[in-house]
Every structure is written in C-alpha cells, then in structure tokens.
C-alpha cells in the first residue's frame, strides 16, 4: 500500500519535520514527485486533540500533548512496547529513582553517560518543531568561523554571507516577527526586513532592561560589555499571517500553542500537500538504506504499523531517484548506522575505513537555569514564554577559552525551574517550603493565602543561558551490531545509544553563565533562589573540578551535529549543500549538519539550510 501511494517518486524523504517539509514543498512546487515517510501519526485536521491531551496531563512536559502516550498502566511507557518511541524529559531521573535515565524500561535513549543528554524530540507529523518555542535568531557571522577567528573547532564550509538570502526566505516562510533595528548586532546584516513587526517586550523584560546600564560581570571575558536587552525574533504572529491568528499570550508555546499563532511545520506540510505532488505515508518507519555497487542509494526499507503498540502491517522497499534523510540528529544517524551492508560496512555515508563521522560530534545547548524574586511585581506567567533576551554576549575573544552563551528571559515565572505556580501553591496551603518562598512553612488559607501567593508569584522570573557546546567526537550516537531485545523498539529495531559528556570548554561556559546570572540578579536587586543541584542528578557536574559544589544543566531541545558538513569526508559527512560525500543521490538535512552549535536556537538556521538544499536539488540534480 505504501508503494502504491506514489509509484516512482522522484524523491523519497524520511521525516516530516521542518527540514523535510520545507524541501518537499519546494520540490513539489517545482513539479517533482515527492513521497515522505513519517514514523509517527498523521497530520490531524486541527490541534484540538493534542491540546486536550495537554490540558488533562498530570505531567505537563514538552512531550505531553503528543503520541505515543508517555504513561502506560505501570508508569512510564516501556519504549520496547511502541513502534516509534522517543525520549522524554521524564526519563532524566537519578539512578534508581522515578524516570531512571539509564533504565531501558523507562528511557527510550540508551544513555551510556558519563553525563545525561537532556534534550528530547518528537516523532510525529511536523517533528520536534511541534513543541518548539519559536525563537528564530540568526547565527552571528563569527559562528561560521570558529577556527579562523578563535582557533577553536572547525569553520563551516559556508559563511554568513552565503546563508543570508536563505535566512531571509526562511523568515518569510515560517513567519518571523522582529525588527531589523533590534537584530543587527555582532555583525549580523539584513537584505530586507522581517515579514511582521516585533512582539512587544514583557514587563519582566523591561525590569531586566532597567538593570543593564549598571551591570558589571567580572572574570568571564565580558568586562566592559555594553549590556542590552533585545526583543527576540519569533515565529509567532504579531499580525494575521498564513491564515493564522495573532498571538494571544497563552504562555504555552512549549509544548503547544492552542491557537496556532506559533508556526509549526504542519503549516508547510499542508502547503506541500496542496502542490499535488507531495504525499506522506504515516506510521511508516524507515529501517534500512540500501546502496548499490556504484555507491548510489538504491532504496529504503520501511515498516508500516497501525497502532502505536501494534504489529507491523506492511514491510517493503521504496525506490526513487534521490533520497533525503530528514529525521533529526539522533534518528538520522541511527538509520545510517543501522544500514550496514557489504557496500557500507560502517553504515551508510560513513566511509569504508574507520574515518567516518556519522553519529559523532553530538551537541546541544546545555542550559544553565537561574531564578530569582524581584523586589516589586513584574507579573510573569503572561505573554509568550519568552519575548526578549540578552544577545550581546554571544561573541567575543572569550570564545578562545570558553563556550559563549545567549540569555533567554523567561515570562513564565518559576514554571520551568520548580513547576510553579503549583509548587508554591502547595507550599502555602500545606505548610511546606519546597519553593523556598514560605519561610516558617506556615499553612495559610482565605485572604491571607491569596495575598501571599499573589505577592510571591507576581515577583518570580528566571533566566536561561544557552551555552555553546564544543563539538567532541566522543559525544556520539551509536547503534551496536548486536542489541538485546530490551534495547530495541517494538519493530525490533535497535534504539539509539548515546555517549555524552561536557568538555572543560563547555563547562567553563556554564560556569560563566552562573557568574553572569548572579551579577544580573544583584544589579536588579532581585533575590536569587536557584537551588543547589543534587549529587545524584545525572545532569550535573562538579565545579570547580574537585570541589563538592555542582552545576546543573538542562537540555535545550537542540539536537545538533552527527552528520556535519565540511569540505572533506575525512572529518565530515556532507558538503555545504548537505549532500553525502559518499553517495551523490543522498542528502542528510537538518541541524545534524551543523559543524558547530554556536548560541542561537538552531531551527531558523536549519530552515535556511533546507531552502538552500532544495534550490540546489532543483537547479543541479533535476536540471
């Protein structure tokens, strides 16, 4: 049935996330026949089903609205029992506790450590950008030139100027609200304005902004910096756009905007389907890529299922002229590494010797989270989850020594740090002090309760520091040749194994973030409440080394590296157009192609790269 959907497609794409659907739409518009294989469920008529699942969820986490269900009858769903599983932040618990990060019955990823990889993803129509925040920052020019500028890591095979026009197109495609005047810092230039005016700053942003003139941060390479708060470019409507509504400030961008004022790839997927040249086979998992004797990809095996936990209903092989893998930086290398054969003994796109890079250089933005109480109300829990940040610290000579960071200002009180307002509410009703806000642990009720909660909740805010992680070849996705059943999914495919650590370069970036957070709070006369990490938390490390103090980091949801671009196959997997060095009819697209992670949230850049790739395919492969 799957093959009958579209006999002899020109292009087969694996994955209906933002990279896959942008390319599919472009190719469809150019008259090419495109079949997409999507591992997860179909594009629904609307988002209300997902929304209701979120509302009723006890644990409101990024994955809550989406299938497969996070919980089964006995706790977290055993990933062995579902056909297209995915990680959840609920599976980052300490050893032996709920959500044990290394318990394969609770965690989809087989985490080998030594530290936890904290980011997650979705395997449904639209992919992980279903639950993104919408932040659409461009990289700064130096981000493409880390080796040349700072003698660190590698340069990209393209520079900012090569990507500028594609950034512009991507901003139009996904609908970014921002003003050029706010965004032309650190060498970023623009050939045109954004398609929508910026999102207004929140009162929280304004309070942080007031503290900028007097802010001094010492010892982390930021001395003398002219600190500034910038509105954040966001794929969030400030005007009606693409027949979608204006943002109503639901404060719920992650995991789901209830009115679809935030872009998600279902918008582009619908556009792709309307070309009449694109079709999607849902609940269809690509299981093996075949390569012929000429080094060209000759087909992709698939397994189709009906129920998330049901048996396969169809297996087969699909062929096309050109193949695009658009999973993500974990599922794409998983598929490549599952595809070992006589022609590809190390997996597809991974050379025949031991110098292949598939799966290597896995990166994220390890996130340092800090929270505080202002001395007067700022009224968080209002507006989009974030409307502004501090961007001027994203570049500088300090990048020779430590990871850079951008600072995201949160509008959701302490929801991210301690799941407030719930925690503080329980504290004041039940006489606890888990939040740190109920000195004396006194239970309250009636007017006194309402007034106390109002006082505390209206003064909460938090900062998130997205730290640049070094690309390390030891941080990687692997798929062992022999895997016990408990480490497979319900289709019998081995789940991704992750080896992950933070280098000293990255740790110094996180330590600088910690120093900067405290300095900002001091400058605001805000009282810091950032809690001390638990020693058994797998997302923490000792800092300074050898001390008992620890720093905790979170995942940013940014899956980067693992099939990076470069000039030569000795140290990269794809070229600047994301074409495999090894197989000229195979493209690997997405943030897995980034050689370095920089500090900007990756979606806009991967969207720009996708449009550039689509143009290449149309103009070169199908000329």
């Amino acid at each position, binding site marked *: 049935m799957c093959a009958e959907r579209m006999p002899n497609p020109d292009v087969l794409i694996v994955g209906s996330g933002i990279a896959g659907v942008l390319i599919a739409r472009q190719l469809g518009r150019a008259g090419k026949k495109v079949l997409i294989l999507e591992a997860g469920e179909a594009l629904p008529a609307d988002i209300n089903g997902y929304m209701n699942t979120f509302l009723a969820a006890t644990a409101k986490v990024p994955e809550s609205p989406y299938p497969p269900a996070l919980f089964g009858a006995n706790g977290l769903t055993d990933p062995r029992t579902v056909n297209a599983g995915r990680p959840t932040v609920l599976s980052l618990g300490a050893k032996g506790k709920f959500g044990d990060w290394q318990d394969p019955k609770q965690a989809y990823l087989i985490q080998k450590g030594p530290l936890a990889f904290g980011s997650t993803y979705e395997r449904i129509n639209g992919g992980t950008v279903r639950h993104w925040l919408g932040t659409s920052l461009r990289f700064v020019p130096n981000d493409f030139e880390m080796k040349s500028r700072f003698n660190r890591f590698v340069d990209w095979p393209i520079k900012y100027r090569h990507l500028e026009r594609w950034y512009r197109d991507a901003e139009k495609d996904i609908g970014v609200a921002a003003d050029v005047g706010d965004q032309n810092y650190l060498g970023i230039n623009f050939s045109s304005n954004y398609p929508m005016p910026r999102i207004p700053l929140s009162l929280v942003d304004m309070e942080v902004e007031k503290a900028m003139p007097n802010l001094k941060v010492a010892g982390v390479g930021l001395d003398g910096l002219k600190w500034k708060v910038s509105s954040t470019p966001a794929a969030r409507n400030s005007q009606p756009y693409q027949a979608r509504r204006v943002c*109503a400030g639901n404060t719920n961008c992650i995991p789901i905007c209830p009115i679809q004022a935030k872009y998600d790839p279902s918008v582009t997927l619908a556009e792709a389907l309307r070309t009449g040249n694109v079709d999607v086979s849902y609940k269809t998992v690509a299981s093996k890529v075949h390569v012929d004797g000429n080094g060209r990809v000759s087909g992709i095996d698939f397994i189709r299922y009906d129920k998330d936990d049901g048996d396969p209903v169809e297996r087969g092989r699909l062929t096309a002229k050109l193949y695009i893998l658009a999973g993500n930086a974990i599922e794409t290398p998983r598929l490549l590494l599952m595809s070992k054969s006589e022609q590809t003994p190390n997996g597809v796109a991974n050379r025949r010797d031991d110098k292949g890079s598939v799966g290597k250089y896995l990166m994220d933005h390890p996130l340092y989270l800090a929270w505080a109480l202002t001395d007067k109300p700022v009224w968080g829990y209002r507006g989009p989850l974030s409307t502004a940040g501090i961007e001027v610290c994203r570049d500088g000579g300090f990048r020779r020594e430590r990871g850079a960071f951008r600072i995201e200002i949160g509008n959701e009180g302490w929801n991210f740090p301690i799941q407030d307002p719930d925690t503080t509410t329980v504290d004041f009703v039940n006489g606890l002090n888990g939040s740190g806000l109920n000195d004396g642990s006194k239970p309250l009720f009636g007017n006194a309760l309402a007034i106390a909660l109002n006082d505390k909740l209206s003064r909460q805010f938090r900062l998130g520091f997205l730290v640049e992680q070094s690309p390390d070849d030891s941080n990687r996705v692997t798929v062992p040749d022999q895997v016990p059943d408990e480490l497979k999914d319900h289709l019998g495919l081995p789940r991704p194994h992750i080896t992950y650590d933070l280098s000293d370069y990255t740790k110094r970036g996180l330590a600088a973030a910690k120093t900067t957070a405290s300095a900002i709070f001091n400058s605001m006369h805000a009282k810091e409440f950032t809690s001390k990490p638990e020693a058994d938390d797998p997302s923490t490390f000792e800092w300074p080394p050898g001390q008992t103090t620890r720093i905790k980091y979170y995942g940013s949801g940014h899956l980067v590296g693992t099939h990076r671009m470069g000039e030569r196959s000795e140290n990269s997997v794809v070229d600047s157009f994301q074409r495999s060095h090894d197989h000229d009819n195979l493209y690997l697209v997405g943030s897995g192609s980034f050689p370095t992670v920089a500090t900007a949230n990756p979606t806009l850049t991967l969207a720009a790269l996708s449009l550039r790739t689509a143009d290449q395919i149309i103009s070169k492969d199908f000329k």
Partner: protein
Amino acid sequence: MRHYAPINLHHPSKPFDKYRSAESGITVTTLFPGPNSFARSTAAQTTAADDADRALFITLSAALTGIAKERLSPAVDPIQINRQYFAQAKTDPAFDGLMQIIRADPSNPAAAAEKVLNNSDSNIKYLGRSIILMWYLGVWYAPKKLENFNSSPPKPPYPPDKVISSAAYTQGWTWRVAQTHPMGYSELLFGYWSKEPPALDAFIK
C-alpha cells in the same frame, strides 16, 4: 526551541478514569473545554438536599480559598466546575464531618473554615487543604498524601493524584491570584503582557 524542565512526577494513579467513564463529553472536540455531560447528568440526578449541600460547599470553599463565592459559582457559569469539585470532595470519607461544621453555622463561613483547618481530626483538616488545592490547581491531592507530605516533606514538584478534568485545569484560581490566566488558556489580547494587569481584587473579589 528551548530547554526542558525534567519533572520527577510519579505516574498518576489511573488519571481521569472516573470522569472519563462518567462523561462521554470529555472527549473534547472544541478548543476550549466547555460544559460537559458529567455536569449536566449530575445536575439531573441531584436532590434538593444535594443542591443545598453544594451551596454550602461553595460557601465554605470561598472562606477556605479567599476567592469570592460569586467567582467560584458565578451567575453565568457554563462550565459548572463546582459540580465536579463537589463530587470529588464527596468521595472522601471525612466529607460529611467537614460539612457538619458549615451546616452547624452557615452564616459564619470564616469560622467554619478555621474549624476545618484547625480540626483535631486530621482527616477533616487535610480534606480542607485538599479542597483548597482543588480550587487553586484543578487537581486532587488526597488528604492522606498531604498529611504524609507534612510528616516527611518531599522535594518538589509534588505529584497530585490526578487532574480533576481538562476543564478543571483551565479554571485554576492560582493563576487568577497571580493576576494572569492558566498556561495554555488565555482569554486576553495581543500585547497585554506589556502592560500591568488589573488589580488583584478584579480577579478574585
């Protein structure tokens, strides 16, 4: 995209089963959960005595929560969340003991609230707290769980036993006390976040 908060929440024990079985209408097909068949069918089956008790329950709830009675049960109330909360509270064995306190002197709910929350019977005392949290958060913490929290304070977050319903999440008073709306349930307009909200009393009095 952005960061994720790892939440060490425990698996809820059979969340929502009771309400799902009672209300076929909970399979919401509209964006915002509205009145459901549970409320309507309950209304059809209630007696005058039940209605009187429910009215007292709301009166007592206002004193417990600090939210005006007219807010908890407004004249125009398509959602009727009070019916779900009343039904939930009634399942607790200490409920009748709690109601005896307000029945004894319905004219002084503040005194009744004091008696509930300072009761020598810990089952009544913690049921009072469970009811406050139900109104504030739309979730149910069993009284015994709250008592256990107090004897051995856990680290947050504090997992509830269940979300009462998807509608209940949208009716939580803790959000209004913070002068805002539940995350995911804004009834406000573009840009409101750049201006100060109305005063607290405009939300709860």
